């Protein structure tokens, strides 16, 4: 609903009005109090008793030097002949075509008539002591070609429009991918086609690499390569170097064409570069940057180059490279996480049990100061103590809780280590297999691959002791996986959409993979295999700004980023060999009694073709019998020659689909699956007859 936003409605002097005709135009300027879309104006008008104004045109124009300027931005008309003829006139609303009004900008309401002669229209105003301070009357005697301002008169007006509430969006997200010693990022939503060329070959992916997001940056730890991808700051350099070095957080000024200010975030040890956030104006080349406004204060840069916007790639060092003032970073790290505003580091092979935390919200300060409650700190700096086991993973599931996974144990830091935090042992029975061998389910569940399988611990008010959740179903899981830290990468990924966890083991050398889907709804483990080119090396839940691209992403062996799609029936063009087995079924009801298996009926998913239910494609079946359960499992697993087999046609159940064959044995089982490219089966049920036949010989 339109509302009055800008107005002058209360002339206080004696009777006053401005005269308007077809050539003698009048205008009232106003400076917008808000940003809005103007939809109409109201003007207080009356007409001459002698002349007919005819159609009155009212428009909005921009201004220049306080005078109407340019073409109409919006306009509307009203029939002036229907106005009264006496002062003080009437408020007449004129609907406009509409245009955007920007807060703080001066506009002009311009009025003219179709009728000619000596001023057929009168616009009520005030030329005694007008109280409107954001504009004034202007007039033109040549149909709006030239204008004159009258600062002693204001004409009555009201602008009406709708104000659009401010958008909630105040930030954007950008996906970053690292592979092949290269760093790439999204240039626009859904397109990750821009390489950060400065990073090319400045990392070494043959060594462990991990990235953490914080402070509009990505912190990359890659053994001795400790790097920053800085998306938030601008970079200003000066080959002449600093005349005076700014402190972190200082505001620096440039008195250039558009006086500029910047909060300094980081300077490196070259003495020629600084990074920061611009808070006013626009920096330019060759104008000195100083410590105070107006070109005063001490000089920072005497002759800077033009500013460069991000992303920037640079070495992660302490501020100014000054270890005396800002401490010493670890020389290497391969594990990192964000905890309480600190980018925590570990994985220093020289001190593998050590964890390092920079100062809160200052990743460039590593100097310990026991008088500072947010100081940088590392194990051994204070009472919190050291761990003494090799750190393999860092996880911060919530505020004030850091899980430190080690080779043989798991520890927790509760609270901030620099301010009454405590370090305690959670378990000495298992460690965490690797830096990515864990995931959080967003509901307080922390899952990790440990000594004897998949473990879960619950994170609520207190952290529970981890329990092995795979042992009862898969007691030999770890032996089956045959993990080797020198050969394999393990990634655990929580899939919120499908409520499960993907456990991925990938052979680093060629992408051979073994995977499990752990279904959180059923508690079941389901093996999966992917084409070697599509083996999982990394995963990330990307909560993109545009929800179309908010997906669970997987970094694959061939350099592509993929997703699981329920409507996709193959793996990027490769058929999926999918199957499950049913059995062993004791056909005679006892391990020593034979029975028969069959006839049978398989009902596949979907009702009528192309109905509301998802349709299954065909499914192949094979029926096996054996004298022992173990032998039957061997036959099911090796997928040997069945006693009978066939294909059930999907979707649903087709008339005449009942299979009348049967076979005799002590145990029976069925293998059902599909390995055809572009097909996927959905299984609803199997109806099968079993009948005792007599004691086994």
């Amino acid at each position, binding site marked *: 609903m339109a509302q009055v936003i800008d107005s002058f409605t209360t002339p206080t002097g004696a009777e006053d009005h401005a005269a308007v005709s077809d050539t003698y135009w009048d205008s009232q300027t106003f400076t917008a109090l808000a940003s809005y879309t103007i939809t109409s104006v109201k003007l207080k008008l009356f007409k001459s008793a002698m002349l007919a104004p005819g159609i009155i045109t009212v428009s909005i124009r921009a201004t220049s030097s306080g005078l109407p300027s340019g073409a109409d931005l919006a306009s509307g008309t009203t029939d002036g002949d229907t106005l009264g003829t006496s002062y003080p006139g009437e408020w007449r609303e004129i609907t406009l075509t509409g245009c955007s009004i920007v807060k703080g900008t001066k506009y002009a309401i311009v009025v003219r008539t179709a009728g000619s002669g000596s001023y057929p229209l009168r616009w009520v105003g005030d030329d005694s002591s007008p109280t409107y301070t954001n504009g004034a009357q202007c007039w033109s005697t040549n149909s709006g070609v030239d204008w004159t301002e009258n600062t002693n008169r204001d004409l009555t007006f009201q602008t009406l429009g709708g104000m659009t509430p401010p958008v909630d969006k105040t*930030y954007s997200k950008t996906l970053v991918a690292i*592979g092949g010693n290269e760093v790439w990022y999204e240039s626009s939503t859904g397109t990750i086609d821009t390489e950060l060329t400065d990073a090319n070959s400045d990392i070494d992916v043959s060594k462990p690499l991990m990235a953490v997001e914080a402070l509009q940056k990505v912190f990359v730890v890659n053994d001795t390569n400790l790097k920053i991808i800085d998306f938030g700051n601008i970079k200003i350099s000066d080959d002449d170097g600093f005349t005076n070095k700014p402190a972190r957080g200082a505001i620096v000024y440039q008195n250039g064409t558009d006086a500029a200010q910047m909060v300094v975030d980081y300077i490196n040890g070259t003495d020629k570069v600084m990074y920061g956030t611009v808070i006013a104006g626009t920096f330019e080349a060759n104008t000195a940057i100083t410590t105070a406004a107006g070109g005063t204060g001490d000089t920072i840069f005497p002759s800077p180059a033009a500013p460069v916007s991000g992303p920037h790639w640079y070495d992660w060092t302490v501020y100014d490279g000054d270890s005396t003032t800002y401490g010493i970073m670890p020389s290497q790290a391969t594990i990192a996480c964000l905890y309480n505003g600190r980018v925590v580091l570990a994985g220093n092979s020289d001190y593998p049990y050590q964890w390092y935390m920079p100062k809160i919200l200052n990743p460039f300060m590593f100097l310990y100061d026991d008088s500072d409650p947010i100081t940088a700190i590392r194990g051994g700096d204070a009472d919190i103590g050291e761990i003494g086991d090799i750190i393999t993973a860092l996880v911060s599931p919530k505020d004030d809780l850091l899980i430190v996974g080690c080779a043989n144990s798991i520890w927790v830091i509760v609270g901030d280590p620099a301010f009454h935090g405590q370090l305690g042992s959670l378990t000495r029975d298992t460690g965490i297999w690797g830096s990515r061998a864990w995931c959080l389910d967003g509901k307080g569940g922390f899952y990790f691959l440990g000594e004897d399988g998949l473990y879960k611990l619950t994170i609520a008010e207190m952290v529970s002791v981890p329990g092995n959740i795979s042992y009862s179903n898969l007691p030999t899981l770890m032996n089956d996986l045959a993990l080797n830290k020198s050969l394999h990468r393990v990634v655990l990924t929580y899939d919120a959409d499908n409520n499960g966890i993907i456990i991925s083991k990938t052979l680093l050398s060629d992408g051979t993979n073994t995977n499990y889907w752990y279904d959180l709804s059923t508690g079941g483990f389901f093996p999966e295999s992917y084409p070697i080119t599509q083996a999982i090396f990394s995963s990330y839940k990307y909560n993109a700004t545009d929800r179309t691209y908010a997906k669970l992403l997987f970094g694959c062996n061939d350099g592509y980023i993929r997703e*699981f799609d329920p409507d996709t029936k193959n793996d990027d063009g490769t058929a999926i060999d999918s199957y499950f087995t049913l059995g062993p079924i004791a056909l005679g009801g006892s391990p020593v009694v034979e029975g028969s298996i069959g006839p049978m009926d398989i009902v596949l*998913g979907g009702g009528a073709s192309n109905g509301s239910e998802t349709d299954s494609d065909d499914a192949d079946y094979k029926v096996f019998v054996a004298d022992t359960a173990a032998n039957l499992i061997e036959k099911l697993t090796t997928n040997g020659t069945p006693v009978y087999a066939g294909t059930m046609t999907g979707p649903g159940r087709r008339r005449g689909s009942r299979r009348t064959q049967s076979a005799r044995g002590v145990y029976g089982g069925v293998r059902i699956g599909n390995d055809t490219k572009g097909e996927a089966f959905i*299984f609803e049920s199997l109806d099968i007859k079993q009948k005792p036949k007599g004691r086994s010989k």
Partner: protein
Amino acid sequence: MSVYFPHKGLHKGGPPSAQPKDTTPDCNNVRPFAGGRFQGGQRPGLKKAYIQQIGENALPVVELISVTTVD
């Protein structure tokens, strides 16, 4: 007898003759949730989320992350 999908998944924890109900001795590339219901079937397929390949040498994508910046 009617048999449904072994939604409790792979089970190798007991004697072969006592395979627990709703489990399977062998399976691959199937999940209990398929076709919009808990009825079982082939897992979702993998497809490219972005058409671009990271780098020119078909090497693994070893890290994915996003960065949030103010507008």
